[in-house]
């Protein structure tokens, strides 16, 4: 099944929607504005009737895999069930209808919600304060690094480097670079954990911070985290926590207690706000006391039950986003926290760890397990054992799609060849985990019996494997002026 683009379906004769008339005697823009200010050529938006539009998007929706229909074991992405009541909460007119520049007295409920969510997140990760302003995880990373940078500067300490493990998410080095730091990579040891010897050799008075994910991207808890924290702090650097893997230990331990000074969280992972096919998310950042003065403005403050936005923070790094962050996502996350409570969040993490270890056990004889367990909330397997039959991690991923599963994260982390990173989460039943394991067994068997079938996968989806190399070639031709087909957008063919 394919679906034409709205632009291809467009019919100039389609009647426009019925909209309010002006009902006042006003002049047309063309009577008021000079020709330089007026648009010469109408934008090429499609023209379709409402029934056609609704059919179009319904058909597009049916071409997606999603957590609502499929098991989505995408490692590091924590694709858990998105509670439907969260959507109802965020859509309440008392939230959705608020203008960001309303007076504080008229938005006390919204501010109270933000304040309570901040307190709850502080309790979960063990920090002093949290800013809710960053719009996504990478935005939170960058915000935290800006605060760390400001902290060092305030002490007259000009530090230029940030340490990032080789197993880290790509956003870590990118955020560090965007904050003006040089990135220095720290190697993982053979056990998949950060090499303390390598860390030692990279630490110096130039280092502003070490960015760490714990459990790391291999799903392994950094057992020596307290030693790492001590080493980092001894040089005057700060320890930054990438919260992508926070789902592993809520109620079990806290990054703040491990020695982390700044902690970002992904509300669209751990706190069930829907991922929306690529956002919006929210990436709050928690900090220990020494970083509190540098938090973005405004903060939400509460005195005697009255809430206000505090803009007067002289040491603040300023604003990182307009208004107060992705408020609608904050409502959803708060709804989740209230429904789950401390007991529920703890059980969620325990179940996430249980599910990952269970699934790991089910497939440990089918794929390679480069590191010893137990794992935390996710594990990284390798399809290296299939390569002598010519089968790669990519083939396994596509074959899973044909079996109605979304694929694990593949080829990440970079330190594992043919990596398949699997994160089942706590909201997938044992029966589904068993079905996934059975699919893996079937695929591994097929790698021997009929590898071509795996190379040809997927067969059951709207399109087969798409030739990204050819697409890139065509884009390059356009960018170099050798072609007029932009590939990155539709252009109505000229008649």
């Amino acid at each position, binding site marked *: 099944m394919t679906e034409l683009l709205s632009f291809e379906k467009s019919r100039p004769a389609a009647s426009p929607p019925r909209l309010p008339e002006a009902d006042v005697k006003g002049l047309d823009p063309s009577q008021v504005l000079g020709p330089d200010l007026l648009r010469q050529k109408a934008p090429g938006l499609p023209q379709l009737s409402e029934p056609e539009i609704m059919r179009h998007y319904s058909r597009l929706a049916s071409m997606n895999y*999603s957590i609502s229909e499929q098991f989505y074991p995408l490692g590091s992405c924590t694709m858990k069930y998105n509670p439907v009541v969260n959507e109802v909460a965020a859509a309440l007119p008392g939230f959705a209808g608020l203008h960001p520049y309303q007076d504080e007295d008229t938005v006390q409920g919204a501010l109270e919600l933000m304040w309570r969510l901040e307190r709850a997140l502080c309790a979960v990760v063990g920090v002093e304060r949290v800013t809710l302003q960053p*719009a996504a995880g990478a935005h939170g990373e960058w915000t935290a690094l800006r605060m760390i940078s400001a902290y060092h500067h305030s002490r007259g300490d000009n530090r230029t480097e940030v340490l990032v493990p080789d197993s880290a998410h790509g956003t870590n080095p990118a955020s560090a670079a965007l904050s003006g730091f040089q990135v220095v990579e720290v190697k993982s040891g053979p056990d998949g954990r950060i090499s303390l010897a390598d860390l030692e050799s990279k630490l110096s008075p130039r280092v502003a911070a070490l960015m760490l994910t714990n459990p790391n991207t291999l799903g392994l808890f950094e057992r020596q985290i307290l030693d790492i924290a001590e080493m980092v702090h001894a040089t005057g650097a700060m320890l930054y926590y990438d919260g992508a893997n926070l789902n592993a230990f809520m109620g079990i331990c806290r990054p703040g207690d491990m020695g982390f000074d700044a902690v970002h969280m992904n509300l669209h992972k751990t706190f069930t706000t829907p991922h929306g096919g690529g956002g919006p998310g929210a990436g709050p950042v928690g900090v220990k006391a020494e970083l509190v003065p540098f938090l973005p403005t405004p903060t939400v403050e509460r005195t005697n039950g009255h809430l206000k936005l505090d803009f007067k923070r002289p040491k603040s790094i300023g*604003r990182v986003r307009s208004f107060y962050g992705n408020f609608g996502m904050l409502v959803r996350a708060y709804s989740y926290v209230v429904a789950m409570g401390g007991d529920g969040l703890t059980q969620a993490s325990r179940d996430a760890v249980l599910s990952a270890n269970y699934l790991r056990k089910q497939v440990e004889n089918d794929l390679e397990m480069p590191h010893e367990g137990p794992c935390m909330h996710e594990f990284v397997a390798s399809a290296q054992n299939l390569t002598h039959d010519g089968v790669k991690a990519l083939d396994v991923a596509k074959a899973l799609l044909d079996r109605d599963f979304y694929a694990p994260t593949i080829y990440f982390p970079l330190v594992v060849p043919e990596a398949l990173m699997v994160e089942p989460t706590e909201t997938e039943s044992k029966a589904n985990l068993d079905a996934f394991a059975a699919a893996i067994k079937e695929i591994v068997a097929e790698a021997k019996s009929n590898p071509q079938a795996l190379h040809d996968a997927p067969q059951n989806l709207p399109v087969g494997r798409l030739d990204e190399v050819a697409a890139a070639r065509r884009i390059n031709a356009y960018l170099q002026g050798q072609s007029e087909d932009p590939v990155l957008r539709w252009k109505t063919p000229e008649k």
Partner: protein
Amino acid sequence: MPYLVHSEEDRASMLESIGVQSMDDLLVDIPQSLRIGSLDLPDGLSEYETMSQIASLAARNRVFPDRLTFRGGGVYRRFIPAAVAAVTSKPEFYTAYTPYQPEASQGTLQAIFEFQTLIAELTALDVANASLYDGATAVAEAAMMAHIHTGRNEVMVSGYLHPEYVEVLRAFCDGRGIKVRKGTEPGPKTAAVIFQQPDFLGLLVDAKTLTENAHAAGALAIACVDPISLAILSPPGEYGADIAVGEGQQLGLSPSYGGPHVGFISCRRELVRRLPGRLIGIAHDKQGRRGFVLALSAREQHIRREKASSNICTNHSLCALAASVYMTYMGPKGLRQVAEVSFKRAHVLAERLAALPGWEPAFPDRQFVNEFPMRVPKASAVVRKLARKGILGPIEVQRWFRELKGVVTFTCTEVNDARALDELLAALEA
């Protein structure tokens, strides 16, 4: 417990399969000294109790009716067709991840490819990306593009750019050691001239001249635009701007206390490799069927790491989808009607307000579209008086611009019907 699926029996049998006695055997890597007994949070609640608590918070907020909202400043009340929520509430869209497996994500990919095309058409530029967080970060990302492209270390903000956008721009630029300067005369160090059309006060700027001056200094011209105004106003591509950015909230998204909304960015062909974030392109499978894929990802953080053009990963896909549904629903004629109705009503309102004793246009020689500044006696009292009558009145811009004492900005759109204008005037005259 809500949302959890394992029963106690499941848990026991899973532990047994793993070959361990208890959960503690799976948590052995966590040092005992770090273990906490429980979270310092109340126990969970039933759905009924959860919603009661949240609804009581919502009830502590005051929501002004659409038609009596005359406040803008970057977030506007507009008519949102029911089609928008009907599409964005489809779980196939809102519960999917970033489309890493294109064959299983064609719905999202095609919808966002359409979004890219819609934004490129609206701004009359060559290519748009898959979305950014908001208008403020879009301005900042565009400045980063200009810095990398020109190798220059200063950006110039011209005129009344949204003050919060300027703040975010400063935060981004501080990190990269780029200077933000206010002014109108770019020099040899200027990477870009950034202006807003219409500006924060609603006034139209001479975008063409600003663009020409930027180019004459070897700088890029970055236009921050109001998407709906582009149905009437000359778009950035027509006056030669290099990059267009903006806030897409007006394209079908509710105010929601400031977010989530959607930032957009488009540029000329020569700058496409500098674009931040996701880009979706056309590709074909072996059978020649057309599909859509994430393209040019060598610019991005997961490949380029510290050399990436931006750190953005998660963007605002679902909000971009909402904007696509909105623009598709409107079509060129609908969008123009919305823009024209807003324009006419705002001009009628401006005229009527100027007739009030002591009231006058703050910039009488300047044109506007549907947001405009008035100089009024006792601005704070005016706003308070309107609130008492259930009207969300104008913004006092002195909060950001000291020189604009007594200046307030009013906004008028298609939701402020003719009777609402009468009610506003009656409240002011009372």
